[in-house]
């Protein structure tokens, strides 16, 4: 069939490392490998994939998954429960050393596996060829929605005899065999990944012939390629379409531009609370008062941001009566004076985003802070250097954003006690308790009480000076029917939110 080719930009270069060790390249698993479940396109709940259905007889401690019948790996081998058991064990295996292992931290026997007293996850069992049982240490009603979503299932018959230590960088990652709608065809380093339609896909054969993931290191070439129709879709990983380029793209009738796409990405000034200068809450509050965030959003960010005064981007998780920290430099000065701020000492200020909008933002922030006597000295650093600064404790202050995902619970690493490195010395047991409580139910109304309470505390104590929730513009070629429509329905786009659900239904416009 002449289904045509869909070209998608992909901003990554570390496919070779493999899904178990990096987020980059993970995107490919959505079309080639599949998980047991997927977040629904619309973000409200999960949908079955390799697992046809599941149930938890004991309110979230034990889960029983019924796998789909007749699913075959791309090489023809039938998919069975053993693959699932194998894959979960692979994630959790300490010898593999996957940063995602923590996702299975609640599974019974995880600790024993980690400290070497067990050689596998005791809680994961194949009941029969097509049934898997997963037992947790304690009841976690949201476990499937929050933890299982981004776990791919790998073919045991291929990876089974690879030593765990050799999984990273294994040849499999550049020649993935999965169960998904597309079959891995070719990988050219720093060029592209080509996948072809899988006529036997269990949700129905895709209409597209193939997808080519074109790899880009830098954002501007993607924009250019989008404009020249060398690619059909922008990848959002680089920050989406740079605000400055929006007008150009909006002029093109073959593109659908979605200018304000919530990224679920709270952006904030980060402080090292272990540093005495920032320990006084008045100092942090002063900084927030000092910055005219509205002006920044309206001008530099051209509206691409939603003012945020606490951690959670989700409406339902935020209290309504938060302190707005409206621009008030006088108050800022007062607070600083009260706190005994030493204006003569400059502040080392690190940041990571190097695109123009963010650089301009930092410039604006610097200017605003300087006006109240906070002399920050921005430094642009790469991740290794930032992590080093975190690690050696020399960190003072910075400008960062962090993906929260769909659920407020995912924000905990930013604020719970002892969470390294992002909590930066903040510890309020009350907050920790609220986060724990938030996971005890899967009823949003019940959960909202905990998170709203937490949002209030975080709004008052400002472990980070919350600035705004990031909004990202995306653009798609109308040539691919289904693509833009899907994104329009999607509530937000973040790293672990799938973007290729129902890709089998997309087609090239005739």
């Amino acid at each position, binding site marked *: 069939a002449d289904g045509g080719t869909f070209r998608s930009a992909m901003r990554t270069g570390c496919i070779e490392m493999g899904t178990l060790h990096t987020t980059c390249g993970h995107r490919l698993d959505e079309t080639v490998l599949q998980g047991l479940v997927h977040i629904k396109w619309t973000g409200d709940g999960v949908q079955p994939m390799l697992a046809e259905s599941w149930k938890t007889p004991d309110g979230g401690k034990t889960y029983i998954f019924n796998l789909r019948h007749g699913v075959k790996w791309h090489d023809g081998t039938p998919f069975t429960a053993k693959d699932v058991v194998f894959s979960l064990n692979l994630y959790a295996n300490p010898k593999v050393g996957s940063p995602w292992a923590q996702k299975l931290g609640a599974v019974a026997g995880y600790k024993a596996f980690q400290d070497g007293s067990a050689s596998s996850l005791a809680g994961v069992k194949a009941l029969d060829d097509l049934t898997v049982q997963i037992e947790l240490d304690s009841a976690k009603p949201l476990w499937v929605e929050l933890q299982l979503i981004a776990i791919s299932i790998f073919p045991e018959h291929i990876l089974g005899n690879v030593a765990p230590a050799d999984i990273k960088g294994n040849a499999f990652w550049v020649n993935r065999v999965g169960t998904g709608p597309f079959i891995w065809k070719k990988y050219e380093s720093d060029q592209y990944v080509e996948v072809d339609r899988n006529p036997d896909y269990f949700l129905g054969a895709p209409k597209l012939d193939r997808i080519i993931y074109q790899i880009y290191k830098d954002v*501007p070439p993607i924009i250019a390629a989008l404009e020249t129709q060398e690619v059909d879709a922008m990848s959002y990983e680089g920050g989406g379409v740079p605000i*400055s380029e929006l*007008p150009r793209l909006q002029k093109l009738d073959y593109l659908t531009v979605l200018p304000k796409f919530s990224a679920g990405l709270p952006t904030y000034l980060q402080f090292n609370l272990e540093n005495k200068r920032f320990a006084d809450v008045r100092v942090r509050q002063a900084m927030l008062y000092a910055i005219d965030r509205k*002006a920044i959003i309206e001008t530099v960010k051209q509206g691409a941001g939603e003012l945020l005064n606490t951690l959670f981007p989700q409406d339902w998780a935020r209290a309504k009566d938060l302190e707005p920290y409206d621009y008030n430099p006088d108050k800022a000065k007062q607070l600083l004076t009260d706190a005994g701020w030493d204006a003569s000492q400059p502040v080392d200020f690190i940041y990571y985003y190097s695109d*123009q*909008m963010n650089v301009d933002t930092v*410039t604006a922030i610097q200017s605003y802070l300087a006006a109240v006597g906070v002399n920050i000295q921005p430094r642009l650093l790469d991740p290794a250097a930032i992590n080093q600064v975190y690690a050696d404790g020399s960190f003072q202050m910075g400008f960062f954003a962090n993906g929260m995902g769909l659920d407020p619970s995912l924000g905990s690493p930013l604020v719970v006690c002892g969470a390294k490195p992002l909590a930066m010395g903040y510890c309020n047991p009350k907050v920790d308790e609220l986060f724990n409580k938030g996971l005890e139910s899967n009823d949003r109304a019940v959960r909202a009480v905990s998170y709203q309470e937490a949002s209030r505390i975080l709004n008052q104590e400002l472990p980070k000076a919350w600035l705004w929730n990031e909004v990202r513009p995306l653009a798609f070629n109308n040539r691919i029917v289904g693509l833009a429509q899907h994104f329009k329905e999607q509530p937000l786009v973040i790293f672990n939110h799938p973007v290729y659900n129902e890709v089998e239904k997309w087609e090239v416009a005739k």
Partner: protein
Amino acid sequence: MTDATAADMTIAVGASRGLWGEAARRFLQHRLATLGLIMLATIVLACVLAPLIAHYGPNDIDLRGRNQPPGGVHWLGTDGTGRDIFARILYGGRISLTVGFVAVAISAAIGIFIGCVAGYFGGKVDLVLMGLIDMVLTFPRLVIIIAFVAVVGPSIFNTMVVIGLLSWPSIARLTRGEILALRNQEFILAARSLGTSPSAIILEHILPNVLSPILVAITLDVATVILFEASLSFLGLGAQAPAASWGNMLRDARTLSILESQPWMWIPPGAMIAMAVLSINFVGDGLRDALDPQHIMGGGGK
């Protein structure tokens, strides 16, 4: 060209001027060189006197007045945070020119010295110095700079030193290559047989005869260094935000939309770099012509 200066041909009886003194005289008669000097002086002066000339501070942001095209208020418009481009050009020139001059001065001094020594003495000296050159040429700048900032911290002074210390090998190789071709020429032998010291031979006989490509290298290096500074500030060395430099102003303009519809953000810094380098080049050309007695002075003005 008919107005080649009279003094040139005048038969001056009496003390003979030094070689470089003679060159200096000829240099001042070179129209293009004079033009270059004036251009350069104007640019430098404008940068030095920036506070008197510019109505705005280089870092005064005005978010509501961003991206304004050139006009009566902001002569060259404003940038993405509403800073006055004209002011930034002037203040940025301070950094760019300082970095350009100092770094190139360092690299030219080291490069010419090492190149002369290696080329003139040859043999083992050459072997060792070439080894040194190879080493420095091999150093991955990116890595060195990242490490350097980490160790000594970012500052403009460090930037200049680092660039200077990394970029001398090209001048050294150029100098050496020229000298290799020159050192066996008879007038050098003649000088040696007169007992002229190596340093005098290098200074009086060799340098004037190999200066032309070196001058080109120096001129071009100023441009490269000014641009290089921009990529350094990107890596945390060089001018740190919000300080402006021509290089990072250009870098900040590297988006398609600015390229297309906000030319006032990139043309001024680009033009300033080009003008600065062009004027340096004119000065260099003048120097070259001044050192070449066969050149008819006053040229380059037609």
